[in-house]
């Protein structure tokens, strides 16, 4: 059993949990993820490790379907059946010179831990974080503290630059040298934003989020095509060279279970209203 130390809604439908998981926390590096399972009937769900403090790890997730909605109903003191990690390869941290971290939506959650390690390795770190509107922007203070420069974008202009992170990234690439870029967010955002760095020939990493089961390289559910080769994102990634990734295939594979996911979410919503226990009665 793994105890949730704190559970906070930090923006609409976006939650920050600190979970006690010593074997994960003690060994986690930037770019790695964990897999958790809520209870005996639960699915194995991958979430990026967003920060570490002693024996606890932080995850930040968006409630988008059955499992994340269920997770959102849990509170400090509740327990999870399983947490395994850290999984995946750590980010390629070294001294590049100037690095830029681009986070979109819930993907912003993955950026501070990478920013911290890049900074510690002697890089000048620029952050660009974007969301649909000001209310959905997360971890702004933390990113401001860890980055040398921080830019904010919102799709509706309610805060910072009115537009997309890709626009700000292009603007910066136009007037200075950036040596490495990380882009983390929804698949479509990573696709579009990494297209922006291609003409500049900048090393660009994206953190891929295909559907996973074991997360240890045993099933191939997470396979992605990178540079024309099949890779297992859970062990060969999750970070890959953005310009080699077949995003169309990734997005197609993310939709495999759309119908079933809808059914599960509907059933869960119904269940929550009926028992009035907010998902705490498990039958």
């Amino acid at each position, binding site marked *: 059993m793994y105890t949730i130390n704190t559970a906070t809604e930090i923006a609409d439908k976006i939650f920050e949990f600190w979970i006690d998981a010593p*074997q994960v926390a003690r060994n986690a590096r930037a770019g790695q993820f964990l897999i958790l399972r809520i209870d005996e009937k639960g699915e194995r769900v991958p979430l990026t490790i967003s920060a570490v403090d002693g024996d606890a790890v932080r995850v930040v997730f968006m409630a988008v379907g059955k499992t994340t909605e269920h997770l959102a109903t849990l509170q400090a003191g509740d327990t999870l059946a399983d947490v*395994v*990690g850290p999984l995946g390869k750590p980010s390629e941290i070294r001294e590049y010179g100037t690095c830029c971290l681009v986070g979109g939506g819930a993907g912003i959650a993955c950026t501070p831990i990478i920013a911290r390690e890049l900074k510690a390795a002697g890089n000048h770190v620029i952050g660009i974080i974007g969301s649909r509107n000001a209310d959905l922007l997360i971890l702004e203070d933390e990113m401001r503290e860890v980055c040398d420069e921080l830019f904010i974008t919102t799709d509706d202009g309610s805060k910072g630059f009115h537009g997309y992170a890709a626009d700000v990234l292009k603007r910066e690439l136009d007037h200075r040298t950036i040596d490495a870029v990380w882009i983390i967010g929804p698949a479509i955002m990573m696709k579009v934003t990494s297209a922006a760095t291609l003409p500049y020939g900048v090393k660009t990493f994206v953190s891929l989020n295909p559907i996973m089961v074991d997360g240890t390289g045993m099933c*191939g559910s997470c*396979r992605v095509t990178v540079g024309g080769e*099949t890779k297992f994102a859970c*062990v060969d990634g999750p970070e890959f060279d953005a310009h080699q990734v077949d995003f169309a295939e990734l997005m197609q594979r993310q939709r495999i279970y759309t119908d079933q996911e809808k059914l599960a979410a509907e*059933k869960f919503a119904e269940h929550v209203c009926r028992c009035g226990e907010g998902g705490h009665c498990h039958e």
Partner: protein
Amino acid sequence: MSDRPAATRVHDFAEVDQGLTAEEAIAEAARCLQCKKPLCVGGCPVCIDIPAFIAEVAEGNFAEAARLVKEQNMLPAICGRVCPQETQCEGVCILGKKETPIRIGALERFVADWERESGATLPEVAAPTGRRVAVVGSGPAGITAAADLARAGHAVTVYESLHEAGGVLTYGIPSFRMPKDVVKAEIEQVVRMGAEIKKNYLVGRSLPAEELLAYDAVFLATGAGLPSFMGIPGENLPGVYSANEFLTRVNLMHAEKFPAFDTPVKHAARVAVIGGGNVAMDAARVARRLGAKVFLIYRRREEDMPARLAEVHHAKEEGIEFLTCTNPVGIIGDAAVTGLECVKMSMCSLDASGRPSPEPETGSEFTLDVDMVIQAIGTSPNPLLVSLIPGLERGRKGNVVVDEDGRTSIPHVFAGGDIATGAATVIEAMGSAKKAAAGINRMLREA
């Protein structure tokens, strides 16, 4: 045979083979000739004293029979069910020359099931030695080594990356062949003997390699879990699975009970399973139970299939259609699979292994109308941990190289099971684990 009828069993995941009754077991045991030089024992990789335990069964002394079996094999209810007996103990039983061999596997299973239902007794455990041994992986190799090491008095910690112990027995072999309560109960006995199992530990990540190597001895039993894909076009389409993924979703995550359980699996009307081993049979029979019409595509002839005979037979009874001498060349579809392109193969000259090598026949291409494809063409040793241990010698196929005693190129690190041999069988994994455990015991005694 004691099988449930195919027409009912394809609608559930309950065990197919119902096992022997006490009367049947006694009668079968009475047939044994009690050979002075029993060939059967030589056919068993863990050297169970087969005539001795069978003699006890014939007398109705089931508890004593169980004790004798467990001297050599802590997982008898498992082996009795899944060993390829026709090529092991039963294959060499002297009675097989003239009539039918003794059903050694069925008797072993009977004894183990009887003991589980009437309360198992544990083998004696030696006084603590103060030595710490780490076992990585809780499949048949890891559990077997843990049992022998715990029995010798060492403090044993088994690390398992998944949330359940058992390896392939838990995530791979379906419950209609290997009921999960049987696996749990046999593993539980090893825990009661003092071995600790730490789940959710991916060694190499959750426990760094240096910390692993700090144990007095290490046994690597991480299996051959890496699924191979054929490398044909269309392989990453939604609806194309590795057998490992398909079986894990069902066996480990209970996707057949979705949405009561959260993990989904695709339900298809027509499924092609590629392969001819136990894994292919299992995938085909699971797909059948999820309601599909299932085709099994194998590039050689039926007699060349490596699967256990019983499983080929069961699969056919359940309506799986076999397309042999057929090789897939491409998967077609757009957002979903719509067909499998195949070519017929003819059997030509013998290859290095003495089997005829299949060659495509020109102009024999055809498309099979299916909406799901499951590839069960093999797996290779798990690379993750072994690639993180500096100085660990590996063979060409990624397997860990070991000597007679199961020792690797690092003196206090041993390995066994599929990680050392490549994908093999439960009983071979256990046999190599026993050797390695004996090697570790010797090393720790001498040190």
